[in-house]
């Protein structure tokens, strides 16, 4: 059976840098308090009218360039986002057009913060099954438009940022996607969700009462989520390494993806990972959900922290609740 590998990686962050100072007045706290509460000092916001597919176009062009491929070489798009350009159709369709791909399939997947891992696993399976040869996995989020600018959101809004990254997954005899582990457990998923619009709400999916109560903004109980995130990220690291039969010391870099970088680092410590080989993805540009891991991957490659042939372990935990891990040889 054909194996798959990451052939190229690229990322794109919007140019508008948003500091905690800028958020402080609306959120009714000082910049120091916001940073202390969330662990996130800086994030980037897309300009009005810019959607995930726009950010993903630039990231995808970079990934294709790194792989030495053209948009027409792609025979499948897998797009992961929890913040689509519009309600429907999905952002993958917009990307197909904006990038100038052939009329190939564009699968729009939703697995929230673990979206990259789910999308990568999907691409890997298409390549292994011989159903696709070169898959563009695009991940992008524009969270900024779903964030409330009010004191009650002071522990939520500073965490999130906008951004995109993409990888090209292609057939290769030497496996690059070495092991993948995915999990979901819906228990207490309301600890991190966004309720409205809610099609299940009869007779109308959006109401004045929901709007007034702010139920169309992200709701997050980070304190309640923390122990579960920490345990799951530690456990899934062990699980993916065990599946690949690779010890911790052979892995060049661990990308740990969670909306609180301090929890990500605590999970890494609990898993026995050396701190100098851990990247808490949210430290780069806040929590960018589906895009956080590939942004960190592209940065690590660009900075020379990862070299060809290195092993990198990526883990994520987030809304759904969904989490997982993947071991890659880059």
């Amino acid at each position, binding site marked *: *059976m054909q194996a798959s590998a990451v052939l190229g990686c690229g990322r794109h962050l919007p140019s508008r840098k948003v500091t905690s100072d800028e958020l402080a007045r609306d959120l009714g706290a000082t910049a120091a308090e916001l940073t202390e509460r969330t662990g996130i000092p800086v994030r980037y916001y897309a300009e009005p009218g810019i959607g995930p597919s726009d950010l993903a176009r630039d990231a995808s062009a970079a990934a294709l360039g790194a792989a030495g491929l053209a948009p027409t070489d792609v025979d499948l798009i897998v797009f992961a986002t929890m913040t689509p350009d519009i309600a429907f159709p999905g952002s993958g369709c917009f990307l197909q057009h904006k990038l100038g791909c052939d009329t190939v399939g564009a699968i729009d997947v939703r697995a929230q913060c673990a979206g990259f891992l789910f999308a990568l696993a999907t691409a890997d399976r298409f390549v292994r099954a011989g159903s696709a040869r070169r898959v563009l996995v695009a991940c992008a989020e524009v969270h900024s438009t779903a964030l409330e600018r009010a004191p009650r959101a002071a522990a939520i809004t500073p965490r999130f940022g906008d951004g995109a990254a993409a990888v090209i997954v292609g057939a290769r005899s030497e496996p690059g996607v070495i092991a993948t582990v995915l999990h979901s457990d819906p228990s207490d998923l309301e600890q991190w969700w966004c309720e409205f619009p809610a099609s299940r709400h009869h007779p109308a999916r959006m109401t004045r009462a929901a709007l007034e109560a702010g139920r169309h903004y992200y709701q997050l109980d980070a304190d309640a989520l923390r122990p579960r995130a920490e345990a799951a990220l530690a456990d899934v690291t062990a699980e993916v390494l065990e599946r690949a039969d690779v010890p911790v010391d052979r892995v060049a870099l661990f990308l740990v993806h969670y909306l609180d970088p301090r929890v990500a680092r605590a999970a890494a410590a609990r898993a026995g990972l050396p701190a100098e080989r851990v990247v808490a993805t949210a430290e780069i540009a806040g929590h960018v959900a589906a895009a956080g891991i590939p942004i960190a991957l592209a940065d690590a490659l660009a900075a020379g922290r990862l070299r060809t042939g290195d092993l990198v372990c990526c883990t994520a935990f987030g809304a759904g609740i969904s989490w997982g891990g993947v071991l890659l040889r880059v």
Partner: protein
Amino acid sequence: MTMSETVNSRILGLGHYLPERVVTNDDLTHVMDTSDEWIQQRTGIRERRFIARDTGGADLGAVAARDALAAAGVKAADLDLLLVGTLSPDVDVPGNASFLQRNLGIRGMPVMDVRNQCSGFLYMLAVADSFIRSGGARYVLVVGAEIHSTGLDLSTVGREVAVIFGDGAGAAVLGPEPDPRRGIFSVHLHSEGRYAEKLMVEAPSSKVSPRVTEDMLEDPGSRLWPRMEGRYVFKHAVTRFPEVIQEALAANGHTIADLDLLIPHQANLRISQMVAMGLDLPEEKVFNNIQRYGNTTAASIPIALHEAVEQGRVKPGALVCLAAFGAGFTWAAALMRW
């Protein structure tokens, strides 16, 4: 099971569920200026189902899924992957697959939404097929579920779109098939985002802040409601449907004469009829049930396939083609031997 034993994936069991509340064309004439004759002439639809109280696609989907699991003889806890297709999610975040997982009382296995509108079921079939054939999963549950009724402008302003859609869910359990002559032969996926805005719901949009406003609740032309350039969509549908059906047949060395049954996504009876005519397919080789359910987007194909099986129209050994076209634009076809 070693991977070499799995040649194809196969649909092992099906289920579907429609809400009990029937809404006839005459019922719609009480809230908008329309008529039974106008709706039937353009779409073939006589009635559709709407939920009558708070109900999610994951609720309808769970009923369909339990039937599909029972028919397949697979326990929910033995599923390796759960996929849900919808364009009318229960909540904004997370996806419906999480709520379906909760409703089925299972945990641990990965769940994921596949958001490909009217082509959603076939897109999910392609994902499930690749996981199974590559040894990444043994049993995959695939559910298409929609609650359209809470997002339709049920007034004269919105009538052109509102009369078309209905609520419902359909489910399939897929598993490995060692016999190369049986199961899913191939799934063909396409998209063309150039036409994304010809059939869409714009709000909530992450490009716009705030994503939802008070104006949207009042505005008769609200961006919360679906918009469709009907004639445009129709024209592309009657081109892409036959094209992708022929692609699936040709990829497997078959011609239209070999086909025992075509199940098109139930978008509009007039589209299905024109596609059948263009392909020279006699009426008995095309299955339609849009007359009773309207367009249930991601749910329409599994609902129709299950009814066709129940009615004895899909016999063992039958060559079956599933095909879809819709918002995106996306379109797709799957060819399988029952």
